[in-house]
């Protein structure tokens, strides 16, 4: 049995509230022992002095593009990127070709991930067949096959009636519905946030209300059906406030924020780099502050990258023609360290909760904690390391990132998945 001894690191376990220097002994796929002054022969030794030891990070929102768009990313390359970014589990969205809307497709993702994956992969299945917004996917059967959640990500269910039925139906298994909140009528033709910047740059805007009207709908439907609903990539101030109020009311709503939505404003679009084109778009400074406040007080439960890798052919075109999306797995930790941890917005415990424990709970995974006997999914982060983002060195096939060349703090030193260093 392979053994790893992590010595002298600062163990951060939000599940137990432990934030202390501890040694961790990993045996096989489990954590064998946690304590002080652990010493054993015949182990791979990791000197973790000055490092943060997090439960393996979980990204509940990535696009692995396989099957159908392997030129953008594959399960192999996407999970390699995830491992480099510190993620031990990723939940992949169903907007592949074919769409993940059948047991066969869920099975395919699991098999492919087992064969070629570097981290654990949990498929999110479509709410509606083919993400067409017309008929429900076989949600019950998909749950049995291990669908982690349900979402028509990128093609929001526009029929309120169908969404209501999906929530009622999914609630039989207490399944999680992930909603990409966007009213396509309101966002039509838009390429960036609507506001002073879009006006100055002469570009068509995506108004904040395109998101907010749908957030309001999902909250109302969740209240009515009792279904667990998760707001994907929340990006506006009013959305955060609605979720905060809904939670106070006891509605079973949760939310995630993407790193680019807490680290960049729409001012980054000035210069017209298509790398800044993402949906929902980079928002105003006020919105960014609200997302950060939401992360701080827990209104926003999780950080999820919305990793959206693209081929350069999809980005090296006119801004309006360029694909939406940012390749986010390999910059998530440095952005969180730089914008949340170092300024003191989040404590290490809170950051570990947003990036590991909370998504584990939402997806009902046996993960997100570090305890004796628990799974050996561990992420070791050096919060003091200074890095310069170099997209050419990304392991993801998608080099599309607005952070290229940026100096940030925080480096993922080791990612351990089920006791294996990956």
């Amino acid at each position, binding site marked *: 049995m392979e053994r790893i001894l992590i010595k002298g690191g600062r163990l951060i376990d939000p599940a137990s509230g432990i934030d202390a220097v501890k040694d961790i002994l990993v045996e096989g796929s489990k954590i064998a022992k946690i304590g002080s002054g652990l010493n054993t022969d015949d182990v791979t030794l990791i000197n973790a002095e000055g490092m943060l030891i997090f439960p393996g990070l979980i990204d509940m929102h990535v696009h692995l593009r396989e099957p159908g768009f392997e030129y953008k990313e594959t399960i192999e390359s996407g999970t390699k990127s995830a491992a480099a970014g510190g993620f031990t589990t990723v939940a992949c969205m169903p907007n592949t070709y074919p769409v993940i809307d059948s047991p066969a497709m869920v099975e395919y993702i699991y098999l492919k991930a087992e064969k070629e994956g570097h981290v654990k992969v949990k498929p999110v299945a479509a709410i509606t067949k083919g993400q067409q917004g017309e008929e429900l996917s076989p949600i019950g059967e998909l749950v049995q096959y291990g669908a982690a959640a349900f979402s028509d990500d990128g093609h929001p269910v526009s029929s309120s009636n169908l969404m209501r039925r999906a929530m009622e139906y999914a609630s039989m298994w207490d399944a999680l519905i992930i909603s990409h909140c966007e009213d396509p009528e309101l966002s039509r033709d838009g390429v960036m946030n609507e506001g*002073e*910047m879009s*006006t*100055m740059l002469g570009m068509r*805007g995506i108004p904040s209300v395109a998101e907010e009207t749908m957030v309001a709908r999902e909250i109302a439907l969740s209240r009515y059906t009792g279904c667990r609903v998760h707001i994907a990539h929340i990006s506006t101030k009013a959305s955060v406030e609605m979720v905060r109020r809904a939670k106070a009311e006891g509605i079973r709503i949760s939310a995630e924020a993407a790193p680019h939505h807490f680290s960049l404003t729409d001012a980054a679009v000035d210069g017209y780099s298509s790398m800044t084109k993402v949906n929902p778009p980079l928002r105003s400074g006020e919105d960014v502050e609200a997302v950060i406040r939401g992360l701080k007080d827990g209104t926003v439960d999780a950080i999820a990258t919305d990793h959206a890798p693209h081929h350069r052919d999809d980005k*090296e*075109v*006119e801004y309006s*023609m360029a694909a939406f999306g940012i390749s986010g797995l390999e910059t998530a930790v440095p952005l969180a360290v730089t914008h949340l941890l170092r300024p003191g917005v989040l404590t290490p415990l809170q950051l570990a909760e947003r990036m590991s424990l909370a998504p584990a709970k939402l997806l009902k995974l046996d993960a997100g904690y570090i305890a004796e006997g628990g799974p050996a999914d561990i992420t070791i982060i050096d919060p003091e390391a200074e890095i310069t983002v170099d997209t050419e060195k990304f392991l993801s096939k998608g080099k599309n990132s607005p952070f290229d060349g940026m100096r940030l703090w925080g480096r993922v030193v080791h990612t351990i998945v089920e006791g294996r260093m990956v």
Partner: protein
Amino acid sequence: MRIKNLLGIRDLENEDILQILDTAVLMKPIMETKNKRTNYLLGKIMVTLFYEPSTRTRVSFELAAKYLGATITNISTSASSVMKGETLIDTARTLQAMGVDVVVMRHPMTAAHRLLDQYLDAVIINAGDGINEHPTQALLDMFTIREKKGTLKGLKVVIAGDILHSRVARSNIWGLTRLGARVALAGPATLIPKGIERMGVEVYHDIKQAAVDADVIMGLRIQLERQKNGLFPSLREYNMLFGIDDKVLEVAKEDVLIMHPGPTNRGVEMSSEIIDSESSAIEEQVTNGVAVRMALLYLLTREGVS
């Protein structure tokens, strides 16, 4: 010139704008000579690349180039070819390989010219990009105002109509505010883009309020298709609320200058009486457009190409 290309008025310093306008003053007499021919651009190749239909802008550039002795080639294409044809980068590479000196492009997408610039050494002149900028139109408008009024500083310029979709308005706002004019916008709330006050303009939803003491009133072309998109109910109501007529002129300064980038919808943006009146500079704008484009071609090819 300090700049290599003309992509937008936003990129220009005050002295760049003034240099172009001053040079245009020298170019205008050439158009009035019998011969109408100089050799400033002899041996230079100008390509016009229009992804949107245009008559006046394209002809204006062609005449300007001809008066300066350049050789001209047109590439005709359509907006639909943007979607399915050769990518803009490949078009740029082709033009680069052919060794052209100046590319005048109109493109339906904002900032397409910046992409072109990354792959092309030639001088690039923006003849309109999406809803963003139409810098040569703004330059000819500023030239016309300056010619008539002597200066732009301190003037009140009203721009009325569909500001949201107007690259003419955006370019004029950048230029006019930079040169010290006071810009007032008038239009229905649906056609005024969010946060435009930040560009240093006043916004009115009542044309008569906007026009008080105006030195210049500029109408913009209103497109019928906007009605179908629910942006205003009818051309009739648009004319009733925002049309420029005698009543509007009553509140403006006596010597108010009436302008329009054309083509006009008579009786919609403004009445025929006003279009054809003494106050109207609409035809002179067209003449001045050639002079301004000559100035630009001259300045950018003379010092802009390394």
